């Protein structure tokens, strides 16, 4: 793991870690930095997909990191350990090698997670993944859809229709660019259906890319239907 050690050590320096800084404070900055990943091309951080406070209004694909250190399992029970859950994020979404648990930076991240709620044992959280997407949810209120876009999509994809402010050039502009890309995979489906497939499966189920999925718990069918209506995508 020398390459990762070196990368994280470099990240620490370039994040400006000061002398005698608490590990948790440094871990907080790592959680907010794409440089946690060993991949130089990565542009997302833990906090891109996870809240770190209870008043975060965003609609995020990942559960809050508050209390995460004391959850008994992750990914709906399919990842039994916190380190494995972090490594899954690094592998699937941040294009990174796994953490070396003994590395100081990795330990600092752990101390930050403890700081976010390491005193109370937590319940495992459900994760309902729709294995098959056959149709889009019913249409909803486009005004609510605009809000869903702002809270759930904009931080990565930027403004609807233009992509202004998107986190990376690879994040397709919503909805047209995303639909066009998805239709290449699913040419026989309706645009609303392929958009739903992308939201519900993210990069998984051979859809591709680096996007996480939105489970039934993190994005309701009602909000997804509203989002589709905001985009003008009819089921």
């Amino acid at each position: 793991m020398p390459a990762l050690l070196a990368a994280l050590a470099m990240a620490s320096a370039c994040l400006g870690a000061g002398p005698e800084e608490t590990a948790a404070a440094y871990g907080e900055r790592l959680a907010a930095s794409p440089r946690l990943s060993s991949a130089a091309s990565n542009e997302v951080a833990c906090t891109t997909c996870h809240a770190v406070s209870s008043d975060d209004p965003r609609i995020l694909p990942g559960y809050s990191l508050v209390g995460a250190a004391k959850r008994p399992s992750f990914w709906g029970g399919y990842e039994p350990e916190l380190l494995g859950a972090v490594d899954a994020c690094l592998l699937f979404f941040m294009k990174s090698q796994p953490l070396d648990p003994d590395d100081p930076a990795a330990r600092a991240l752990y101390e930050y997670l403890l700081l976010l709620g390491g005193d109370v044992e937590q319940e495992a959280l459900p994760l309902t993944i729709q294995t098959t997407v056959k149709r889009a949810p019913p249409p909803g209120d486009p005004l609510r859809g605009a809000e869903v876009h702002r809270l759930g999509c904009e931080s990565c994809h930027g403004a609807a229709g233009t992509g202004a402010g998107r986190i990376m050039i690879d994040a397709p502009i919503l909805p047209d660019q995303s639909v066009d890309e998805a239709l290449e995979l699913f040419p026989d489906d309706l645009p609303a259906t392929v958009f739903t497939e992308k939201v519900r499966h993210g990069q998984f189920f051979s859809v591709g890319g680096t996007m996480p999925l939105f489970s039934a718990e993190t994005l309701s069918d009602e909000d997804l239907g509203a989002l589709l209506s905001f985009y003008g995508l009819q089921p």
Partner: protein
Amino acid sequence: MLSVWALGACAEGGEAGLVFQHGQAWPRTSLLPPSSGPRLVVTNSGDDTLSFIDLDSFVEIARIPVGRNPAEPEGPHHLAASPDGRTLFVGISNTVPVNASGPHGSHGTGSANGYLLVLDALTGRQQSWIRVYRSPGDIRLEPGGQRIWQSHYDLVTIGEILKEMSDDPAMDAAGEAAYFKRMDSKVVVTDADTLERVKEFTICPAGHGIAFDPRRGAAYVSCGFSDEIAIIDTATFEVRRVPVDEDPGMPPTPRFEPYAVAVAPSGEVWISNTSRIHPGLRVIDPELGAEVEAKRISTEGLPLFGAFTEDGSRFFVVTQRPDWLLAVNPQTATVEAAIDLEPRGCLNAHSANLSPDGASLWLVCEGDHLVRPGSLERLDVATLSFTGHVELGLFPDDVVVLPEVRP
């Protein structure tokens, strides 16, 4: 506990230090209770878990997730254990009994490559994995435990090539032979210690069940879509194909669909043919490289995996539709007993396995694959009476014995 770590300096210069509050980061506890004796491990291919069963009490002591991808169903199919009981090898097939999007399908129709997963059998933690090909079928350790063999029950490639053939108006006999050659599935042989690939080679369409005969230095693999078995020299990997019956079929219309293989102490190779038209058992004499016609056994149900007693006096094999356990006399090729498994709650019997001491039979029952869990049944070999039942996860598919690990 406080500790200070100095981190590397950045290009701009300067040193950084961190003050730690906790000595132990990222706690990693065993996913399994401490080992106190031999265990059975079963793959639940419908819910991506492994069940661990205490051999003596016949109680499930743990069920743990298995797979590389926590978001997708991956279908852990068959598994094998190292002789010392410390390591499990699981084939990830990407074939699951749901109509899922993406690379998943029913048995043999996963379109994504599968994996060989390696787990620490004492903790349940995954240690590493290597990629193999579509729809890994059987996974077996060569006698001695040094090499892992994986077949590939890859029906997707067969379908793709059949489509190419139908779209090729200029296909002549030579071209047709070339197409059929491309349907041959691969066997991957992996070093169990280093996980380096020892060898990969093609055998025949839809390879599945694997069995070894160390006395002959041979491996046998069923060829589900060409009605053959592949006989492989384990030293040279030379492949010889032998039909399991006269008038064999070929893709896409096999007539016998050989699926499972077992080697008798006599050296005979017993094949389970799962065709609904010709279900039954066939016997191959590996010396002659030919089927033993006098030993054909027709069965009412579809026979799957079976096991021979150590003295070779009986072959136990299960069938589906109906779910029966058959006790076969291999010398006379007659069925001496047929036990109805349905009253016991065994739905879709998949395999009959003998305990190492030969006293017990374990039957893996698949359940209905989607809702009704499967089970593991235990029978006394001498009386063929049921002595144990364990409810498992969705679609149990294979069982292996983990011997007690001694320090």
